[in-house]
């Protein structure tokens, strides 16, 4: 294991390259490359990497970047790409297609504000706009978790009990462009962790089929239900992938949801990506003062870990959801999902805080303000806009 000082983008490019290389004794790897800030360095890394059996195609759009992945995956290769913001929006049609095709493509989504206005900073609105696509979505707090989560993503996506694409998300700039010391896995270990990618429904001449053609309602309904069943199997497949990860790499990545100091707490902060890390520091400061407060960091958004939330929040009196995203006319998107998970549960004050949109700096002070607010509440209101850039 090599420890190195790398950016989030560098770590992601490195890990994707090793995952692609690990399939060299099977059908190889292939993906599409198209630049957009702040993920561009990832596709630059992939274009520069000399694959033994692979090719990264420099395409003319994100739409085609995903189309190349679709073709490569249908032909049996390990396929991956990266995008951000309006690139993800432009890619959307093929993002849905990749999932409905049941192709285990892995995509890095570097979260960035959707424009206009043109703003290159962190905001989860881009990947969350794809929440209704048949993709697994994982959100990494930091550089190390990013590396580990990409490897987990390939493992879960390619598992025949799942066969769904997976998106690994990180905050633009806050992770993508900052450097941290990271344990970068060596090829040999990645080869052991990622067995060859095998596609049960790849294009075959000995059994010619039309893949992705027309279907009647009966078959379509069945296919959609199969996708839900595959999603339902993700938590156990992920747990098994984590077990294997620990055995091979010697460290244990976090699961879908991490509940920290929740058991003895009346108030809990719920967050994801780097905001969860900042919130952890704020929560620890409060605990040192004797406050009974905990943190839930959400790593997996799709499938949404409803059971984990129900368990973690039972006995909690107040929960503040921090959403660096917003669905106009509704509110924060994590909040919506958590509220839907808790239907029928009584006695919890669940309050949404829309915070840090467009890359606004969510500092520990901001988190303390939010904690003060929720602790003074007796009832929830509509989502609170916590504007941080005053």
């Amino acid at each position, binding site marked *: 294991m090599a420890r190195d000082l790398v950016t989030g983008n560098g770590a992601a490019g490195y890990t994707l390259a090793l995952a692609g290389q690990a399939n060299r004794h099977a059908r190889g790897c*292939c993906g599409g490359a198209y630049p957009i800030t702040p993920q561009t360095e990832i596709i630059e890394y992939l274009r520069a990497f000399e694959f033994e059996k692979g090719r990264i195609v420099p395409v003319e759009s994100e739409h*085609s970047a995903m189309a*190349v992945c679709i073709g*490569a995956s249908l032909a049996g290769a390990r396929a991956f790409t990266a995008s951000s913001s309006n690139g993800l929006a432009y890619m959307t049609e093929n993002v849905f*297609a990749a999932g409905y095709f049941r192709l285990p493509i892995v995509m890095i989504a570097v979260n960035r504000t959707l424009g206009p206005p043109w703003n290159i900073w962190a905001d989860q609105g881009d990947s969350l706009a794809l929440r209704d696509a048949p993709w697994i979505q994982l959100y990494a707090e930091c550089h190390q978790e990013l590396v580990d989560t990409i490897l987990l993503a390939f493992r879960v996506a390619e598992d025949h009990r799942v066969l769904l694409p997976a998106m690994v998300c990180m905050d633009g700039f806050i992770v993508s462009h900052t450097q941290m010391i990271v344990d970068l896995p060596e090829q040999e270990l990645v080869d052991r962790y990622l067995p060859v990618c095998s596609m049960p429904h790849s294009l075959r001449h000995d059994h010619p089929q*039309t893949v992705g*053609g027309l*279907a009647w309602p009966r078959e379509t309904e069945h296919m959609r239900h199969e996708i839900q069943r595959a999603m339902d199997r993700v938590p156990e497949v992920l747990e098994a992938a984590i077990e294997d990860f620990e055995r091979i790499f010697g460290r244990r990545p976090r699961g879908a949801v991490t509940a920290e100091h929740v058991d003895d707490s009346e108030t809990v902060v719920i967050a994801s990506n780097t905001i969860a890390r900042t919130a952890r520091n704020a929560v620890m400061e409060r605990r040192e003062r004797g406050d009974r407060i905990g943190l839930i960091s959400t790593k997996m958004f799709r499938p949404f870990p409803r059971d984990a939330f129900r368990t973690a929040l039972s006995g909690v009196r107040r929960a503040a959801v921090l959403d660096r995203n917003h669905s106009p006319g509704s509110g924060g998107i994590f909040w919506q999902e958590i509220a839907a998970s808790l239907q029928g549960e009584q006695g919890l004050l669940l309050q949404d805080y829309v915070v840090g949109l467009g890359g606004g700096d969510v500092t520990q002070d901001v988190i303390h303000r939010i904690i003060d607010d929720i602790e003074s509440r007796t009832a929830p209101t509509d989502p609170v806009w916590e504007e941080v850039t005053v």
Partner: protein
Amino acid sequence: MTATLSVIRDCDHILRPGNTNCAGCGMSVGLQMLEQGLGRTRPTLVIPACCGIVTAGAFPTSGYAVPVAATTFASAPAVATGISTVYHLNGDAHPVICWTGDGGTYDIGMATLSAAAERNENVIYICYDNEIYGNTGGQRSSATPEGVRTTTTPRGKPERKKDIMRIMAAHRVPYAATLSIAHREDFLRKVRTALATPGFRFLLLLSPCPTGWKSEPEESVDLIDHAVRCGLFPLMEIFDGTRYRVNALPDGTPLERYTERQRRYTSTEINSKHIKEEIADQWQTLSALAHAFPAKSREQFEPA
């Protein structure tokens, strides 16, 4: 019934019997000639949203006896890039063929097509051009000729047809050619030439659509014969985007023999004199190019 189904299932022809294509569809004839040109070579087809994917029928049946990737509308050349890349990495010999309509080629797929051509991907791209969005009931595309009535140009289309052959030539693709279902030997030879040429190959097939052209199904092949003979649809080949060969010269067949048998040509905007002038201009340019920049004599498919 069971016997009939097994005959269809075991049928080796690329286009299986029992498909849902309309009578007189140029695409049906084109697929059969494509198979004859390919000989024993079995392609992988990449088909975007178009009549060609309706041909496949509904899951789990398939109107095609070869593997087909059905793609989103604009994506065929990019999906084909992924497939052909992985085939190359693994030494798979099957040619990857995009089979697309004019909407997916001239309009929504233009950027994707241009990019695959620019990268010179190892893909054969065949556009069956029926000059309308046929699948959706006959709306205008940028391949619709001037003056023609469609459901979105009820008084006739004011704009001229896009010259896709010159666009592809500008990409300097190794091989571009036009195909006629009325000129079988020429069609087969061009498929063989395309097969023997590495890189991006573009083939344009003028494909009658009786429902959209308002023509009689049994006249489809004759219509294309007239289109070639009157000079409207030149049979040609372009090598590396720079060297030209004309395969058939206009023989004086009147344009009206083509237009008067299609009720789409009955709008008041149709001006035969104007179309004839355009045909004359087209031939002036093409003849000059073919004379100044001729294809080499060896650029001719020779059976091995």
